[in-house]
């Protein structure tokens, strides 16, 4: 054996096996996995029997229950409850089999790892995406077949049975869509869990993070089906469409996350069975102090600001642009909603700002009634400093609470919460602005009420939103060469840096301006 000393060169051999990755080819390769696994599932009586029972027996049980329940509530004049129970049971008939999809998904991934049969598969030319798609499909197909089969049997028994139920077709479509997206959410979630664990036991324990939210969603859907005012609408129930949309979004994010964590390196190299909190906190602390991409700690506060915070701001990149766009859309959207006749407020056309001006005058210590001939205001007793400081703290606390909540929720929603919670205020602002214009008021007072402190507060809130968005979303696609854990740790460090270095001082300054400056400016405009 000799030691090779030459440097590597990129190789393209003419006799290379062709592994072109068109979508069709990827799907074809993925289906090789799917076929084997589906066949394997159907050869396992522990999976086959529940499917048979849930497809052919459970729907009749549900139909029987629906008939008895409808008869019972009709005796008490509550026919509507009976009617609404029928689609609810249809959803349950569909949901029970898909709940199994998660069990299969957990078993398929972590089970293979446990049985050591994953490595031979990872040694084949299949790409990570092909393995991921193939296994995801294989976890979904048997339960969905059972679910659709069960729903068909249930619907058939209803349409042609004693109840002779004639539902809105769109409601059936909605329930089928809900069943499908729920299966997708559970499977894609289970893939993430099972690809990161080393035992079925650990995977099952972590799966509660999927089951509990799903159970809550199902309860919410049931509730909506019972109380929705548009339950009989030919367009379906609006709230259910919103849930379907939201679930599709979550599926998209989970797919991204799954595709990024489902790679050979993660599958064989990274495990979260042992959670090392000390190491996690040490990593976050390291990246909070870091001034460069290598994690070099800052030597002093000036360097931390000049290099570290600057680097974190640069890292926000696309998240900042998305946050700005969402804030603009929120404001414009609020304004646009306010233009719709049904949303317009009946504001008086002519109004006087004398009363609010007087109130503000008292707050800032100037009497509006006592302006002398030279235009100078006579001072009155203003609100004492401690009260103003309390006001300042209130502004800081209110903004801070929302931003902290958005950041925490963002972690569990892949960043979506950050784009809902904080911009929501700007929908209201846009709406009020629209009403002010419509009522013919001078909009100057709006600017006076917002801009004196808003020039600091708004950029700070946008930055905090962008940091929260990045922190939540980074898990769905870690930067190249980084694992999810590494990416998340660096993003957490960036978030803390921006939070401590810019957002907190910014909120304090904005709170000071809002309490001590804005009232003067607003007063001068209103009087």
């Amino acid at each position, binding site marked *: *054996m*000799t*030691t*090779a*000393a*030459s*440097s*590597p060169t*990129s*190789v393209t*051999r003419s006799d*290379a*096996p062709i*592994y072109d990755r068109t979508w069709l080819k990827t799907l074809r*390769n993925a289906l*090789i996995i799917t076929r*084997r696994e589906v066949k*394997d599932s159907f*050869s*396992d009586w522990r999976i086959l029997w529940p499917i048979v029972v849930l497809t052919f027996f459970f729907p009749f049980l549900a139909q029987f229950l629906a008939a008895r329940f409808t008869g019972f509530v009709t005796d008490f004049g509550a026919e509507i409850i009976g009617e609404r129970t029928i689609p609810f049971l249809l959803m349950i008939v569909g949901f029970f089999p898909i709940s199994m999809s998660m069990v299969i998904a957990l078993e398929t991934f972590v089970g293979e790892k446990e*049985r*050591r*049969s*994953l*490595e*031979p*598969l*990872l*040694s*084949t*030319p*299949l*790409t990570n995406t092909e393995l991921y798609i193939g296994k995801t499909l294989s976890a979904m197909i048997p339960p969905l077949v059972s679910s659709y089969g069960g729903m068909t049997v249930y619907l058939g028994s209803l349409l042609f049975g004693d109840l002779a139920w004639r539902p809105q077709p769109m409601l059936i479509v909605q329930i089928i869509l809900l069943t499908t997206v729920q299966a997708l959410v559970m499977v894609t979630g289970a893939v993430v869990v099972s690809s990161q664990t080393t035992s079925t036991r650990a995977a099952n324990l972590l799966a509660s993070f999927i089951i509990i939210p799903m159970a809550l969603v199902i309860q919410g859907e049931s509730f909506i089906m019972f109380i929705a005012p548009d339950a009989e609408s030919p367009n379906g129930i609006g709230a259910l469409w919103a849930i379907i949309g939201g679930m599709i979004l979550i599926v998209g994010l989970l797919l991204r996350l799954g595709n990024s964590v489902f790679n*050979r*390196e993660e599958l*064989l*190299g990274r495990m979260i069975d042992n959670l090392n909190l000390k*190491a996690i906190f040490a990593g976050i602390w390291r990246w909070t102090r870091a001034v460069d991409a290598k994690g070099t700690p800052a030597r002093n506060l000036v360097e931390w600001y000049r290099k570290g915070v600057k680097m974190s701001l640069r890292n926000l990149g696309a998240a900042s642009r998305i946050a700005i766009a969402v804030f603009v859309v929120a404001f414009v959207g609020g304004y646009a909603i306010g233009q719709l006749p049904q949303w317009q407020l009946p504001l008086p056309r002519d109004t006087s700002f004398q009363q609010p001006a007087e109130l503000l005058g008292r707050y800032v210590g100037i009497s509006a009634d006592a302006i002398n001939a030279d235009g100078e205001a006579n001072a009155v007793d203003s609100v004492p400093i401690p009260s103003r400081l309390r006001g300042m703290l209130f502004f800081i606390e209110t903004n801070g609470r929302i931003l902290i909540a958005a950041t925490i929720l963002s972690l569990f929603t892949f960043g979506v919460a950050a784009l809902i919670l904080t911009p929501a205020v700007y929908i209201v602002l846009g709406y009020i602005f629209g009403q002010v214009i419509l009522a013919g008021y001078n909009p100057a007072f709006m600017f006076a009420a917002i801009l004196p402190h808003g020039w600091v507060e708004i950029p700070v809130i946008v930055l905090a939103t962008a940091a929260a968005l990045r922190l939540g979303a980074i898990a769905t696609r870690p930067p190249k060469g980084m694992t999810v854990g590494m990416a998340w740790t660096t993003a957490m460090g960036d978030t803390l840096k921006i939070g401590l270095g810019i957002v907190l001082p910014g909120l304090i300054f904005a709170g000071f301006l809002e309490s001590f400056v804005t009232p003067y400016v607003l007063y001068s405009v209103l009087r």
Partner: protein
Amino acid sequence: MIEADGLTKEFDGFRAVDSISLNVPAGKVLAVLGPNGAGKTTTVRMLTSILAPTSGWARIAGYDVVTHPEQVRASVGVLTEQHGLYERMKSVEYLDFFGEVYHLSRQVRRKRALDLMERFGLTFALKKRLGEYSKGMKQKLALVRAMLHDPAVLLLDEPTSAMDPQSARQVRDAIVELEGEGRTFLLTTHNLTEAEQLADTIAVIRHGRIIAHGTFDELAQRFVGDPLMELRVRGQLNGATKEIADVVRVEETGSDWLRYRTSDPAATNPALLHKLTGFGVDVITLSPVQRTLEDVYLQIVKEDEQQGASPDDDSR
């Protein structure tokens, strides 16, 4: 066929493989020896493009493991430490699945599967579920899976560890045959006799580093010295030992035997025989004392341990 330079892998700061360099030409067998946890499996995983190196590079059959992972995996057959079979499947179904993954046509994969099953004496178990296979049979089937797509390079982790002597012989014969056809092998094994029999070159890996590499003779020469010769005579040696001191340096002696080392047996041995005959000593046998890979391996590890324990050594 297998080339690597400075190949390194770190996991969260722990260096599992440390700057490994290899060059195994086509048609050669490299045996990688080392204690458990030495970094052998991690090295194989990097050479299969399952794990990305932290630094360094490797090429398999001309393909870079980082830039051409699919081509690398198509070019290698891997026998993992655990056989990892799907136990509810039958062997034909199992091999058909892997054949399809490697894009073999239905006809080709069926023919190759049956040929290989026959070669390894598994035809009788075609209709059995893999869960019913014995440990050795499972290992042989895993080997069949690794060879199914006729790869240019085979990375075999403990290929005969669970096999009975006859099965192990079958596997060794197959390796020799395939080597003759130009296939390249990297074997990791604890079976030193097998490594000695099969390997053209040997690498000893410890704490992620290659601490010795070369042919068996090169390693033996370096770590246990010159070949040891043993001479047996009729009757007593008496004072003959002193008389031959100018020809060889005797290391051990008995009443009718002696042992000496020589770096050049072709020159030393005839001269020694000539001198002893001159003294009227009748030589019964003169033969080299067999040195085993086990002796060499243990010496290599011992020396590495001593180096590691030395306060002057700051390499670890």
